[in-house]
């Protein structure tokens, strides 16, 4: 299953590298695990494997900065191996996984476990977040220095917000001593408890609402603490128009803040809930069209740095329930590329800008080596056909769980080959001209 990395030349590709702004026809020479050369003309060494890309796009492998892998602890929903298969089928070569596992990733042993399982799978690379607080309980700072030493790339309580202002203040302050990044699920916990976006749709369906204000309030509080402590802060999965405005103002003031949003939030609205469709039950919830438009605008003007799938596998038992009882979350690692390509149409973004949100931007933020096409960089690549359409569904999704908010939808942009450290780990549809 693990072909050894040799010498491969990818020819006749539309090279897309957001880091350098390169968009040209040419090739990439891969020697061993690294990119050896890139440009309009690359030499073909004797004995090299030649891949003719026939004019299709070749970009850095995608970096999905927010996924749940469910292992250890919920392997009936997903494993590191099954998520990695879905990832490479979607052109994702690196994932940063949340610490909300059982046991929680709050000590170096669990970091090592996740790293070892990812190595065994040998597909997409996995970079764990360490828990920001012990047990993600939000009470005491976790051993983030030791976690970083063992490989954690940033710190977050994942799906849980750090609610206490005192704990968040100490956490940001302590993290700033080391220059670590703290990522927050911005939802004021004392305002939580709803099932979908608060408003007339929830009212009509008789569902309790999650107030958009719960997001702004925690975001505003955190940004005050960022200002005091000088810490690096990342707000995960923005969902409201006001949140985008808050981050835009904070960036204008020079705070070290970044943020991401997810494909369902910039492609769908609360209307997707329809008649209690639990695959559309997400946290944060899908919002209104005006929120979606604000997210697209934020992506276009750079206020929103990254797109992350927020991949959250739920087995059918967790979703075949009343809307209130159903679990939050959707799978997304395999649909990330297609969703980002929609930004060229939905937000009128240049292709390189759209790709930057899932390559160089998250790689820079997390300090990862991939995310760019340049000599010396890891040969983590995706070759894709930007026009090919495919249908999202149980027959195409490779995750152990199939709870995609885009279930049954047609998406545009299909992966034909994914390369990790010079090895072709996924070969999809035939390359045709």
């Amino acid at each position, binding site marked *: 299953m693990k072909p050894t990395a040799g010498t491969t030349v990818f020819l006749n590709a539309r090279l897309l590298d957001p880091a350098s702004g390169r968009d040209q026809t040419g090739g990439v020479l891969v020697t061993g695990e690294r990119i050896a050369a890139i440009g309009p003309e690359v030499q073909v060494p004797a004995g090299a494997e030649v891949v003719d890309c026939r004019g299709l796009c070749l970009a850095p492998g995608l970096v999905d900065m927010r996924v749940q892998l469910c292992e250890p602890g919920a392997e009936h929903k997903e494993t590191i191996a099954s998520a990695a298969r879905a990832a490479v089928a979607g052109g994702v070569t690196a994932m940063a996984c949340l610490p909300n596992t059982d046991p929680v990733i709050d000590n170096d042993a669990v970091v090592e476990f996740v790293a070892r399982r990812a190595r065994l799978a040998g597909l997409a690379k996995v970079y764990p977040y360490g828990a920001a607080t*012990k047990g993600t309980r939000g*009470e*005491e*700072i*976790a*051993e*983030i*220095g*030791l976690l970083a*030493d063992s490989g954690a790339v940033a710190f977050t309580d994942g799906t849980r917000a750090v609610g206490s202002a*005192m*704990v968040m203040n*100490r956490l940001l*302050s*302590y993290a*700033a*001593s*080391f220059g670590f990044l703290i990522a927050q699920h911005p939802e004021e916990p004392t305002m939580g408890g709803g099932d979908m976006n608060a408003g007339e749709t929830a009212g009509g369906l008789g569902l309790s609402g999650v107030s958009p204000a719960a997001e702004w309030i925690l975001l505003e509080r955190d940004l005050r603490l960022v200002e005091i*402590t000088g810490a690096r802060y990342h707000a995960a999965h923005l969902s409201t128009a006001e949140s985008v405005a808050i981050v835009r103002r904070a960036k204008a003031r020079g705070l070290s803040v970044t943020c991401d949003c997810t494909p369902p939030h910039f492609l769908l609205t609360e209307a997707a809930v329809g008649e209690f469709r639990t695959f559309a039950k997400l946290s944060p919830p899908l919002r209104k069209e005006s929120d979606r438009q604000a997210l697209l605008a934020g992506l276009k003007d750079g206020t929103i740095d990254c797109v992350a799938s927020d991949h959250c596998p739920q087995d059918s038992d967790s979703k075949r329930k009343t809307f209130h009882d159903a679990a939050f979350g959707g799978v997304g690692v395999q649909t990330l590329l297609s969703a980002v390509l929609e930004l060229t149409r939905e937000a009128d973004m240049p292709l390189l800008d759209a790709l930057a949100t899932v390559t160089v931007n998250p790689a820079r933020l997390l300090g990862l080596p991939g995310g760019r096409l340049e000599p010396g960089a890891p040969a983590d690549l995706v070759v894709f056909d930007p026009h090919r359409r495919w249908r999202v569904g149980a027959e195409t999704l490779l995750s152990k769980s199939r709870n995609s908010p885009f279930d049954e939808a047609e998406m545009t942009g299909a992966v034909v080959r994914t390369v990790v450290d010079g090895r072709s780990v996924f070969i999809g549809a035939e390359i045709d001209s």
Partner: protein
Amino acid sequence: MTPIYAQRHLLGTRSLTAPEITDLLDRADRYAAVNRSAEKKLAVLAGRTVVNLFYENSTRTRTSFELAAKRLGADVVNMQTGASSVAKGETLIDTAATLNAMHPDVLVVRHQDSGAVSLLSQKVNCAVVNAGDGKHEHPTQALLDALTIRRRKGRLAGLKVAICGDVLHSRVARSNIHLLAAMGAEVRLVAPRTLCIPGAESLGVSVFHDLRAGIADCDIVMMLRIQNERMSGGFIPSTREYFRFFGLDREKLAAAKPDALVMHPGPMNRGVEIDSDIADDVERSVIREQVEMGVAVRMAVLETLTLNLARGGDR
């Protein structure tokens, strides 16, 4: 010889001038010699009464003051607040008034609250020595640290001194910052941000959050105790993480000057802020010498304040 320091109390190092400090250290140097001789008893404070009033548990500081007073010939009374009227609910000011009525000459006071010793000093006629008030000042510790350094390095001016660890909760750090700055040393603080004094730069020090970078090229590495008893929890994740990044071991100490001295005000948490390997290294560690200089410095302070009382005449 008239002391240069002319105040009635010694409450902190903040207002001390270089000549005052030098005079106190010179006196202490002479007492250090006395303490090493066989005949240690002097009559400088004969007929005087010194009261040690300790609201916080202390062994070394109280013993050090007691020995200092006894070697100078004073009568010494130790007040344990746990077994006194304080335990019965007496206020600080009432206790001060009560003690004052007994006409002591010097009150040596330690209290858990910053500013308590200064408050008490305003209510008595005798001299008051601050033996540590909350997170505020501990002037005799800074003086004994300075004496230890001066005896080893021959000077204070121009030395690079790194004060490392739980600076936030440390009265030792604050007193040392003022005193060392007055003597022309370059002071650095090394701590995680959660244990640093907010706005420390305004005290004229530079701040580091990396131990190796902070002690690089330093002459003196002063470690502070992790004040577990003062931690309301959560300033650091764990003592094992603290030791990994901020604990002084031989490998990290290599960043300092080859002849850098290691100091610690005690009591030490071995394996938390300092490796035993360093703490017990007689080539590098002057921790025992600090204790020795403590008695000498306290003798100099008691002598100075008693002379000032006499100078002030009627009180």
